[in-house]
């Protein structure tokens, strides 16, 4: 069970990266453009950041800091460059990055005489040195237990629930049974299936928390006066054949496998132990993926029905579909087709093995289409108004 499943980058805290990126992280909106210029000037650097800053309050402020620190300390980040407008914000994220053992550089706009070009100049020079250092690290054997999966579905149709999400669930079961971690979010898409999830919770307390989280989302929809039919499921879901949130959810939650659910975490909160976890998070893929990655996911499995090009920039995102027409039409988007499961040419176990093989190949460095096209952008959720 602990034999080598893939080759990855071992970090000083014992976690393993499937990539070895220089992350240029803008922790304030003001420094986003400069941070993007720094990242675009450095081969192998990836930009992530927030468009927001000082006005964030309450849950937003807490979740933002947690997410930014989570991105900086994701195991796929070989080194982080933390760029921000003010020393307080940069120092906070830098301290959390240092605590995780991630090499970093910190750059503060206020220390440049408020000159974004000076900031870019310093960033390029510091980033070049970090890249040179991290390029010397080599991939080494790592067990399946070092995998943390983020499990997502987007632009689903009924093929997702029948032939793609159950495969993710079977892979999640294998990873979790080997001591790894799998995270499923998209709380709205538990509605109608929340009792099934709660019944699998490791403790009664977790079960209650799962039901409460789903009911809270339902309450948000009612309070907003929104008819979920047309919103979630959305237009593309409905055109693909889905009808109600219940139908979508019953197909979506099969991503969480069949084994016990260890617990429920908040948006971007890292699970405290291996196993199958739920994250109470928005369903929209860009926000959802960033929640997983900030919680430590080093690889994402993402199913689609009609097609969805988006991926994480920090965690390689494997795109899957069970819709044969989509697999044929989007042959530079879909990494794995599980359509043979629907047509009866393959059983669940062999489809799961095929996907697990792809997980290990990608974890060892094989590229996914969303990675090749850099199709994605880390997007931090918002929870309320700002000052």
């Amino acid at each position, binding site marked *: 069970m602990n034999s080598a499943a893939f080759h990855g980058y071992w970090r000083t805290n014992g976690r393993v990266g499937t990539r070895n990126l220089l992350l240029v992280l803008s922790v304030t909106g003001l420094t986003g453009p400069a941070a993007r210029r720094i990242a675009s000037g450095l081969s192998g650097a990836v930009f992530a950041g927030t468009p927001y800053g000082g006005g964030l309050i309450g849950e937003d402020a807490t979740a933002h800091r947690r997410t930014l620190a989570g991105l900086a300390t994701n195991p796929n980040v070989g080194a982080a460059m933390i760029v921000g407008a003010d020393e307080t914000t940069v120092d906070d994220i830098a301290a959390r990055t240092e605590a995780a053992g991630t090499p970093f550089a910190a750059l503060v706009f206020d220390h440049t005489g408020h000159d974004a070009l000076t900031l870019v100049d310093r960033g390029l020079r510091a980033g070049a040195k970090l890249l040179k250092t991290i390029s010397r690290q080599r991939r080494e054997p790592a067990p399946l237990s070092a995998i943390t999966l983020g499990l997502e579905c987007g632009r689903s149709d009924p093929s997702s629930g*029948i032939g793609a999400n159950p495969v993710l669930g079977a892979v999640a079961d294998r990873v979790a049974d080997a001591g790894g971690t799998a995270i499923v979010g998209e709380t709205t898409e538990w509605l109608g299936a929340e009792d099934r999830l709660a019944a699998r919770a490791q403790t009664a307390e977790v079960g209650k928390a799962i039901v409460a989280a789903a009911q809270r989302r339902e309450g948000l929809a009612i309070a907003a006066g929104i008819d979920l039919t047309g919103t979630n499921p959305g237009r593309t879901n409905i*055109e693909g054949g889905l009808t109600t949130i219940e139908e979508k959810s019953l197909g979506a939650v099969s991503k969480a496998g069949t084994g016990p659910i260890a617990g429920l975490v908040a948006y971007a909160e890292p699970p405290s132990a291996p196993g199958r976890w739920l994250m109470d998070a928005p369903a929209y893929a860009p926000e959802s993926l960033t929640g997983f990655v900030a919680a430590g996911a080093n690889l994402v499995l993402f199913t689609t029905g009609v097609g969805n090009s988006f991926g994480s920039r920090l965690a390689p995102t494997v795109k899957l579909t069970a819709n044969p027409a989509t697999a044929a039409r989007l042959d530079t988007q879909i990494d794995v087709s599980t359509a043979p499961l629907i047509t009866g040419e393959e059983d669940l176990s062999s489809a799961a093995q095929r996907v697990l093989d792809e997980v290990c190949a990608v974890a060892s460095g094989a590229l996914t289409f969303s990675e090749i096209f850099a199709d994605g952008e880390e997007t931090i959720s918002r929870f309320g108004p700002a000052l």
Partner: protein
Amino acid sequence: MSAAAITLDASDDVATALRELPAGETVAVSHPAGQAQLRPVEGIPAFHKVALHDLPGGTQVRKYGAVIGELTSSVPAGGLVHIHNLRSLKAVAAPPAPPSEGTDP
């Protein structure tokens, strides 16, 4: 005969079409216990749902062995079940809102 539609649970009221099903063509439907035959009374687009038996208005329709919503009108065996005749029971503020029409933008 390879199935043209799939029933996921023995208690389900609907099957999911695995390809476009023309009206009047008798097709094989797979279900957990084996295979059955069904004749759609109208065209069923790929991956949409077809009623396995006559379903009166108000039926709480089952798929995956669970309720996916409530019928706003009756559907005969072989009829299409979609948002024109099925509504969600979730996020419906009390008192129940009138049946929502399709909201294709």
